């Protein structure tokens, strides 16, 4: 991923306004009207034209009738972060028109359904009325499909007005309707008719347009949740229990979609996997832990409120040393919060989850590519260390479409950790004075050997529990046994520090200023670094990908005079954890946080850092 200039945004300068291949379009529609299909069609067509694009869906927690926005950013430089500027607005919703115009670039363009009454707007804005209602009527489509058709009309009009290639639009429509010829034909007809209408009736008065490039070769488009599910499948997932929650549901739904293709016994047609929609998250985690204990590669996927419900069972898995993988696709909390908006707000909760002394191995993917990679890697880590692994994705990464590299096949064989089946146990017992203890640390690395239910060796069984237990799994309230057991688990996880995915670094500037971030803050930080550089402020960058932190993180903090910790939450949760884990460097950390439910922007990050640097001077 680092090697692809588009995805990493390397070598870019400035931020000039350029009407060709460098602008944003916001579609303002009503949710439940099928606009997602229309918007994704445009996104995909641009992608197939070789132009770097990204799409962000800002949607309400509602099924039908409330305003929803979708922004496509077209960036020849490969920037994919959210941008605080709408160059083009496609207005389809009377209810939000005032807001839409407020965010519109004063030199921008307004396409609007001609039944919308426009409020006052700057005279510099170029407008194009679209006879959406009358054109939808002309198609003679049933009334129930009219909204849907209306959205396809603006696809055709935009194609004409922005020079989007119709052949690429067709590719996108074909992909969406997956070979359903009738649907492809009727949608293409609507788009085509709208294109022709625009050709005849609209005169181009604005400078925005697209031109084909060749910057998306060998890239794919995917959302993080699909990538995570596919990664899990290539990691050999065997069991998943889940409960519906935005924005995590599509992860489990993708497992349901793809698993049948890969995991049926060819001879019998029978499944070698299980996906259960549980009655709630309490049960989802219970099932996941049961399966993990019984030797299955086991995972669940949820969001903050679900993780709250899972806390008690996670503590049991930690102490009974059961490998499980928990994906938390974060949304805005506390409480129900903003359930359809994005945040990096579950970092400290995941870090401290559970009563008593606990620790969790945390992975933080920063791209769709990493969602796939951590999808398989998380199982190896969980089974190697016999412990829960929490993967912190978020709504922006999980639900939006991103450009990504083609998925990369795991570069390591599956690691099931220290498991003893019948023959292994026999050998183990012979080698170790006739002894095997489920929690006995023989190798000195804190990781004991585990047996799995179904093992027929008469000495294989043990009674797993969350109550105090000794090296042999026997109930114990002994003070020394308790303390030693808990300390062993801690020493086991301490060793994971250097095994977990290492941070990604860019230290080319040899600057005294460091920027540190994680997860989906990445695209905005990358862009902010370029902006700062063009302003004469050079910075080094580190993106952490796992907690506990490896020594590189300590060194990065040590090597810089000050480090901006950029994250999408109120309290600076990554900043808090860094301060706890690396207290000697805590004074250097500068909390750089923002939480409004929207993805971070380069403008905000660079502005924040610039103004702070100015006060230092």
């Amino acid at each position, binding site marked *: 991923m680092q090697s692809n200039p588009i995805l990493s945004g390397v070598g870019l300068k400035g931020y000039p306004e350029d009407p060709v291949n460098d602008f944003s379009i916001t579609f303002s529609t009503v949710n439940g009207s099928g606009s997602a299909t229309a918007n994704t069609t445009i996104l995909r067509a641009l992608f*197939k034209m070789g132009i770097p694009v990204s799409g962000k869906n800002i949607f309400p927690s509602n099924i039908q009738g409330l305003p929803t926005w979708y922004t496509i950013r077209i960036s020849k430089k490969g920037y994919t972060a959210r941008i605080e500027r709408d160059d083009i607005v496609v207005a389809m919703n009377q209810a939000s028109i005032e807001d839409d115009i407020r965010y519109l670039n004063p030199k921008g363009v307004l396409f609007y359904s001609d039944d919308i009454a426009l409020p006052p707007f700057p005279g510099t804005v170029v407008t194009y009325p679209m006879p959406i209602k009358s054109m939808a009527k002309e198609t003679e489509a049933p009334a129930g499909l009219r909204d849907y058709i209306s959205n396809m009309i603006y696809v055709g009009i935009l194609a004409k007005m922005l020079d989007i290639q119709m052949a690429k639009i067709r590719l996108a429509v074909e992909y969406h309707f997956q070979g359903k010829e009738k649907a492809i034909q009727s949608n293409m007809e609507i788009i085509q008719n709208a294109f022709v209408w625009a050709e005849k009736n609209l005169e181009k008065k604005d400078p925005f347009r697209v031109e084909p490039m060749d910057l998306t070769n060998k890239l*794919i488009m995917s959302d993080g949740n699909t990538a995570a599910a*596919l990664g899990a*499948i*290539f990691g050999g997932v065997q069991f998943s229990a889940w409960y519906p929650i935005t924005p995590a549901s599509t992860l489990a739904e993708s497992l349901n979609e793809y698993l049948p293709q890969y995991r049926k016994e060819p001879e019998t047609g029978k499944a070698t996997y299980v996906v259960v929609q549980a009655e709630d998250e*309490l049960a*989802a985690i219970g099932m996941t832990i049961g399966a993990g204990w019984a030797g299955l590669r086991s995972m669940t996927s949820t969001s903050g409120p679900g993780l709250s419900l899972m806390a008690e069972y996670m503590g049991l898995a930690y102490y*009974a040393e059961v490998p499980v993988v928990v994906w938390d696709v974060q949304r805005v909390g506390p409480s129900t919060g903003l359930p359809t908006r994005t945040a990096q707000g579950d970092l400290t909760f995941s870090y401290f989850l559970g009563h008593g002394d606990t620790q969790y191995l945390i992975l933080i993917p920063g791209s769709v590519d990493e969602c796939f990679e951590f999808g398989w890697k998380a199982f190896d880590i969980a089974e190697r260390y016999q412990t829960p692994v929490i993967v912190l994705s978020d709504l922006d990464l999980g639900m939006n479409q991103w450009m990504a590299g083609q998925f990369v096949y795991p570069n390591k064989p599956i690691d099931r950790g220290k498991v003893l089946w019948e023959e292994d146990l026999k050998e183990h017992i012979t080698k170790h004075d006739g002894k095997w203890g489920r929690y006995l640390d023989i190798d000195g690395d804190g990781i004991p050997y585990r047996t799995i239910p179904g093992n027929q060796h008469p000495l294989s069984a043990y009674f797993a529990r*969350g109550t105090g237990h000794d090296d042999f799994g026997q109930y114990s309230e002994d003070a020394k046994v308790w303390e030693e057991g808990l300390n062993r688990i801690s020493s086991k996880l301490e060793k994971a520090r250097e095994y977990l995915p290492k941070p990604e670094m860019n230290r080319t500037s040899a600057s005294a200023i460091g920027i540190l971030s994680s997860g989906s803050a990445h695209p905005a930080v990358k862009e902010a670094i370029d902006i700062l550089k063009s302003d004469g402020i050079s910075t080094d960058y580190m993106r952490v990908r796992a907690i506990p932190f490896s020594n590189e993180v300590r060194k990065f903090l040590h090597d810089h005079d000050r480090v901006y910790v950029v994250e999408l939450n109120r309290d600076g949760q990554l900043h808090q954890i860094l301060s706890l884990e690396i207290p000697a460097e805590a004074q250097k950390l500068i909390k750089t946080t923002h939480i409004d439910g929207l993805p971070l922007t380069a403008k905000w990050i660079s502005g924040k850092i610039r103004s702070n640097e100015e006060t230092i001077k």
Partner: protein
Amino acid sequence: MSESPAVPGKQAINDVGMLRSDYKGAPSTLCQGCGHNSIAAQIVAACYEMNLIPEKVIKFSGIGCSSKSPFYFLSRSFGFNGLHGRMPSLALGAAFGDTTMRVIGVSGDGDSASIGMGQFKHLVRRNLPMTYIIENNGVYGLTKGQFSATAEKDLFLKRQGTNPYLPIDICMEALVANASFVGRSFAGDPKQVKELIKSALSHRGIAILDIISPCVTFHNQGGSVHSYVTGKEMEQPLHDISYVPKRDEIMIGDFEEGTTQEVELFDGSKIVLKKLESEYNPRDRWQAMHMLEEAHRNNWLVTGLIYVDPDQPTIYDIYNISGTALNRLPPEKIRPPRSELDRLNLTMF
């Protein structure tokens, strides 16, 4: 019946070469006379007599006195003591590791009828093949004598006063959730407990056994069906139940014709129900509910096989799971080959 003839001075070996002691657990730390101990003893007896291999059984529990009991039987079986009320989810996930294993869960009224009600009913509706025993004493023992959700209304307990709420009937809840096997018994009736446990272990589906198991320390007062004395007085068996393993079919001839009903289970074994005072058909869900309501109104402790449907599809059927133990699949069976990822990449947009 399935025991080999005992040799004097020697423990008898069953058909799979096991002694009764091979099914034992750790010594119980529950109170002397606790009904739970007697149930554990019947689980040991049932497994021994049924010739089960202990390594082919997994056992589960939640939290409470009842949930300690899996430790007191089948030491050679894997077990997992989960969280309060959340044994069902743990068992369901674990059962998929190797679907050839027999699953025994032991819970209590505190564990299953309060926090656990949701998981209990959802496990029932999923029809996981599992023997789910609820050791029901109407009281929280481990926290020293609070009312449970199955305690009868107006029950008086020393530190709690009078129970203001109507009780939950576990068998009724199981029936309402479409359980495929529902039985009720009384720890003071060990023979019936054992026959029901055997039947439950042979049932392919969820088998709910609500076993009244008096708490000798906090709630054994006369007048309550949760006590030894009153339980015995009020017990009204629906039938005389016998479990007949497949190979002992000949024994059925011992029963007088016209006085018994038979239920054939998935493994070919049979439950033989000898008629007592009145007719009762345990395959009739409607009659089962009617009977439970009648028992409730009359304060009877009706015991026996309340309902059974041996043919209801299980969760394994629903998921069409491979016959190979999933937890023994080698890496090449769980990770698709590189060529599949190449193909997948081509299908991505």
